[in-house]
């Protein structure tokens, strides 16, 4: 370690993605769910030993008799959530993205999605938001879930969007998988006059030189990247796509159709099977073929370590993104 450089820790459980001095809000999912549940007696909270680490403890404190701690048993969690939904309740079932996607897949697929049951699956540590290594890094959760019929998939960017997405996914009747940023979550989109709409992409800023298409925390990075690129006289547009499925293909095609503007998709996910390939297929099917590239995680089991280190290493930090785009454009 070089002298003077602060020692970076893994902090895998805290997994904060906020940068130094960034505005944040604590536990936006937990607070939004508790607020919504005050008017919706059908909402129940269920978890598999990760209530604290999915911010569901806020709901549990507000509504202890509507909180179901199912123990460390994700298959049971999803099966029981299906049963609860059959009896007319709306379970918000939480765990880590790796466990939902990898371990409980069949129970979500056949128990919940095939029956279009009204279960909201909300999962922390999506993509690379943990330094614990592959056991906790859900780098392929979107690839896994995109193939599941009937499932709506949401990847919110910040605290504001999480707060708005909770009532929106509750208003949607059917199964939803939402990627969760937990703890002290950055607040970014309040500066963009933004409002979350399920199934809708939103152009957060326009620009003539490149179109960045992104979801989740990568939209935050894309906005920072766009600001940084102004110094290079590069004018970047940012299209935020918080609903991964169903994809807002019309808005993507309209934005990408602008002549002479290359398209880059930035995602906190492996480059296989996520937003990047979804956008690429959309463009090809739509007959629009701009210069195209992906910024995302490699097709590999990733290292353990501190998140800032890993985000730099795998090219999804703002600095890495700026360098990639400078070199490309």
């Amino acid at each position, binding site marked *: 370690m070089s002298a003077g450089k602060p020692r970076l820790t893994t902090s895998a459980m805290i997994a904060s993605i906020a940068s130094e001095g960034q505005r944040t809000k604590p536990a936006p999912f937990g607070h939004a769910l508790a607020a919504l549940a005050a008017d919706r007696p059908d909402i*129940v909270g269920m978890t598999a030993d990760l209530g604290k680490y999915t911010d569901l403890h806020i709901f549990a404190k507000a509504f202890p008799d509507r909180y*179901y701690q*199912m*123990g460390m*048993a994700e*298959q*049971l969690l*999803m*099966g*029981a*959530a*299906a*049963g*609860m*939904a*059959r*009896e*007319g*309740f709306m*379970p918000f079932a939480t765990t880590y993205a790796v466990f939902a996607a990898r371990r409980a897949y*069949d*129970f979500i697929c*056949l*128990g919940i999605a*095939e*029956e279009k049951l009204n279960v909201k699956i909300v999962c922390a540590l999506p993509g690379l938001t943990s330094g614990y290594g592959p056991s906790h890094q859900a780098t392929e959760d979107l690839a896994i879930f995109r193939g599941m019929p009937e499932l709506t998939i949401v990847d919110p960017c910040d605290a504001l969007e999480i707060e708005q997405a909770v009532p929106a996914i509750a208003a949607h009747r059917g199964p939803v998988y939402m990627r969760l940023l937990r703890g002290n979550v950055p607040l970014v989109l309040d500066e963009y006059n933004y409002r979350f709409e399920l199934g809708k992409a939103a152009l957060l800023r326009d620009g003539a030189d490149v179109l960045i298409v992104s979801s989740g925390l990568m939209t935050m990075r894309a906005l920072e990247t766009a600001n940084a690129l102004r110094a290079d006289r590069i004018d970047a547009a940012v299209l935020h796509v918080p609903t991964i499925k169903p994809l807002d293909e019309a808005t993507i095609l309209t934005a990408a159709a602008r002549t002479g503007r290359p398209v880059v998709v930035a995602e906190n996910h492996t480059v296989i099977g996520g937003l990047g390939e979804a956008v690429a297929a959309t463009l090809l099917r739509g007959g629009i073929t701009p210069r195209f590239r992906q910024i995302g995680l490699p097709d590999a089991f990733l290292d353990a370590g501190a998140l800032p280190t890993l985000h730099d290493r795998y090219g999804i930090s703002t600095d890495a993104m700026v360098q990639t785009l400078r070199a490309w454009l």
Partner: protein
Amino acid sequence: MTQPTRFSNAPSLAARAWRIRRHALRMGEVQGQGYIAQALGIADVLAVAYFHALAYRAEDPAWEGRDRFLLSIGHYAIALYAALIEAGVIPEEELETYGADDSRLPMSGMATYTPGMEISGGSLGQGLGMAVGMALGLKRKTSPAFVYNLMSDGELGEGATWEAAMSAAHWKLDNLICVVDFNNQQADGPSTDMLCSEPLAPKWAAFGWHAQRVDGNDIDAVRAAFDAARALTAPQPRVIICDTRMAKGVPFLEARDRNHFLRVEADEWAKALDVLDAGRVS
């Protein structure tokens, strides 16, 4: 009708079981195949369930006050269809459509297809977890209804079964009754030869369940077990392990080896019906 359907013992449960077997054989004849050995084996248990234990309304299968009967073993659909036909939930003439394109009676049971089918089973090991969720939900609604989950001995190999078993005891789900069809026959051979779950009743008891083990083809014993499970006041879930004989009621099929997916030749369906009819009970 405001009261749940309840049946006295006339026609007898044995007659009901006989008719369930007959409906199942007719469906097998229509399709030329089916999990007929399982259907014949479980018919006595289904007769007790649908004509002694369960509260339901044949004309309103989604009636809120009904007892929920979950078929975790989706491939036993032929057996449940037979029971639902006998119960008047499904019209008898519909058995002619069993397994046909666009039928409400597909080969593996699915909730979206069939009235009276509570869940989509078939991905084995999922039913008991769903039953836990439904039992929790019914308690939230202060409903007196029971949840029954019919599963097979093969499903005891699935880890999710035991997650759910622990959970049911943890939540003291006295409204949950699990019925295990122990016919000791899986796709590749006898269950006890490949992943032995014995000693089974003590295992469930150790998980916190009230456990009974009965001869699943002895109607009086099965009825007594259902009665005991329902009457129990202890705050714990209940399991009834039913030892059944595959293809029970049709001796020449009972004698056939490797009968998980029983091969029945085209001319044998009528013969099986004749054998069954010869042993008719009223």
